[in-house]
């Protein structure tokens, strides 16, 4: 929320600035330029994929008709954002949670890869452990303690309590 409000405030400021001294040089708002290009690219990708499907007619629309329509709309909107990025200026993007992305995003993927092989309990433990490292404040001992507690709690609630059909320990850890 905070980010948005600041954006709008700087947006207003940018408008004032521009009306004051009518754009001296052409410069781009990096965020919007990026946003516009990504959306245009995604639109083109979907359009390209839609052409691989049967289009049909307006009377009997094929599987590709409506998606093609939407991709064209998305592409056009992307181009508009790209063009507008030369006019309106926002504040820069701000810090990016690189460490966060590095550890948070793999956590569910790891869970997906191991829940069948290792089983539910180890999968939960390692998923939590991976996520723990996303914060530089988390001490290793704490991380193990939190993950262990979480694994015990989850197996009690989901496996024994709610009776979800998870294998507690999978074939990889059985001897």
């Amino acid at each position, binding site marked *: *929320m905070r*980010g*948005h*409000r600041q*954006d*709008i405030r700087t*947006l*207003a400021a940018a408008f004032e600035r521009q009306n004051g001294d009518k754009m001296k040089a052409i410069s781009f708002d990096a*965020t*919007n330029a990026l*946003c516009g290009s990504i*959306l245009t690219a995604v*639109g083109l990708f*979907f359009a390209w994929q839609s052409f691989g499907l*049967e289009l049909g007619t*307006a*009377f*009997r*629309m*094929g*599987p590709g008709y*409506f*998606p093609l329509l*939407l*991709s064209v709309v*998305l592409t056009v*909107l*992307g181009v*508009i*954002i790209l063009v507008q990025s030369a006019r309106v200026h926002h504040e820069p*993007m*701000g*810090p*990016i*949670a690189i460490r*966060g*992305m590095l550890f*948070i*995003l793999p*956590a*569910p*993927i790891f*869970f*997906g890869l191991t*829940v*069948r092989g290792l089983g539910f309990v180890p999968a*939960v433990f390692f*998923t*939590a*452990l991976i*996520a*723990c490292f996303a*914060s*530089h*404040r*988390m001490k290793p001992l704490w*991380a193990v303690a*939190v*993950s262990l507690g979480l694994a015990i709690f989850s197996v009690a609630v989901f496996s024994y309590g709610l009776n979800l*059909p998870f294998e507690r320990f999978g074939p990889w850890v059985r001897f």
Partner: protein
Amino acid sequence: MDLFSNLALGFATAGSPANLLFCLIGVLLGTLIGVLPGIGATATIAMLLPITFQLEPVSSLIMLAGIYYGAQYGGSTTAILINMPGESSSAVTAIDGYQMARNGRAGTALAVAALGSFFAGTVSTFLVALFAPPLTAIALEFGAAEYFSLMIVGLVSSVALAHGSVVKALAMVALGLLLGLVGTDIYTGTPRFTLGIREYSDGLNFVALAVGVFGIAEILRNLESEKTREVLMARVSELLPTKEDFKRMFAPVVRGTIIGSALGVLPGGGAILAAFASYTVEKRLSDRPEEFGRGAIAGVAGPESANNAGAQTSFIPLLTLGIPANPVMALMIGAMIIQGIVPGPNVAVEQPALFWGIIASMWIGNLMLVVLNLPLIGLWVKLLKIPYFVLFPIIMAFCSIGVYSVNSNVYDLYAVAFFGLIGYLLLKLRCEPAPLLLGFVLGPLLEENLRRAMILSRGDPTTFFTRPISAVLLLIAAIVLVVVFLPSVKAKREQVFVEED
């Protein structure tokens, strides 16, 4: 009278011991997660959604509704105590609520918020019960063309009420619609946009998308800069408002309820608008306008009531038409579809116990909030002190378990990571995710009705303009779209979102 026999059926359904228990669990869990700073109602519901899937449809929806109210209440608590609204609709509460807390009146502020919400909840539950059946009757007359146009109205309104750039919000709708089409085409069975992955032939998992875009993206944003939060007070005392307080909160609560009930029906997030409108009205009408911004009771009572009334009446379009009014309702639709219920006017006719049970449980949920949360406030304050770095591994583990438990499909977990990345990217690019989610839910419905309408009219697109109801709906959509692009409205709209601070 029909209304009373219907309500009796509803209370009989919602009042069964099992459903009462699920409502209670929902309210408690919702508050528990909602109190955690930075996690709004949408993210809370997205995270807790999977645990309701094992239940009966009625119980599961009652529990979800409970989670929704709980999360909203939790959001107000953080707004008042740490000036950190979990949801944009409680952003207005933070203005005066936090000031009241700083003046040592945190307990009163929390009680006013709870009591105002309860009053609003009671009134608007009746409104839902009153207006839902006639609207359902109208909706039963709807054909494919009308449904198509109605969904266009919903999508356009979500654009109008989104933050920031209108063009970006429109692009988000288009992207959401496209993502919603991933999977097998219902008419021909052709796989679309699955990139050859067979596990996605049933479409992208809605829960995975919601958890990724709202839950994980939010965690990443919070990890950008880790700061220590300060909880304002060690103890919250003097919960009960004085006689004087009651006198000063009564009129704002009533006005807030009216405003909220009216605006909540609007598709696209009326609760936010309602809270803001109520604040403005109270400030205008107050004989002590200078108090606003420094801890005015009316500034908490009005918006909180409006907010809650809006949350309640936003069920009207969902229950009668199957059209979600906001992202939370979009989640509800997702839950209904997973439970095998097709949302729409038929629900009231075919499953009256479910329909009225949900309505009755709204009131029960609100009652539970007042009864439970005021005594439990000390516990919520303690929760606010849990450091964030302990919280998010827990959230991540529960998200993973939850998403996996929906279909036992490991590809859903890869989708969570993917949409987490997309959601964070959209945040960084200042694109609002709410229209995307709405588009995703409505995508398949929109296409189906478009194709059906075109077949019925033998390929004549004027059918949307020659059928009167459809024409009126499209006209409304066009007016909304024109209005948001008008320069004067555009400036005002930006001003509204700035003042929300």
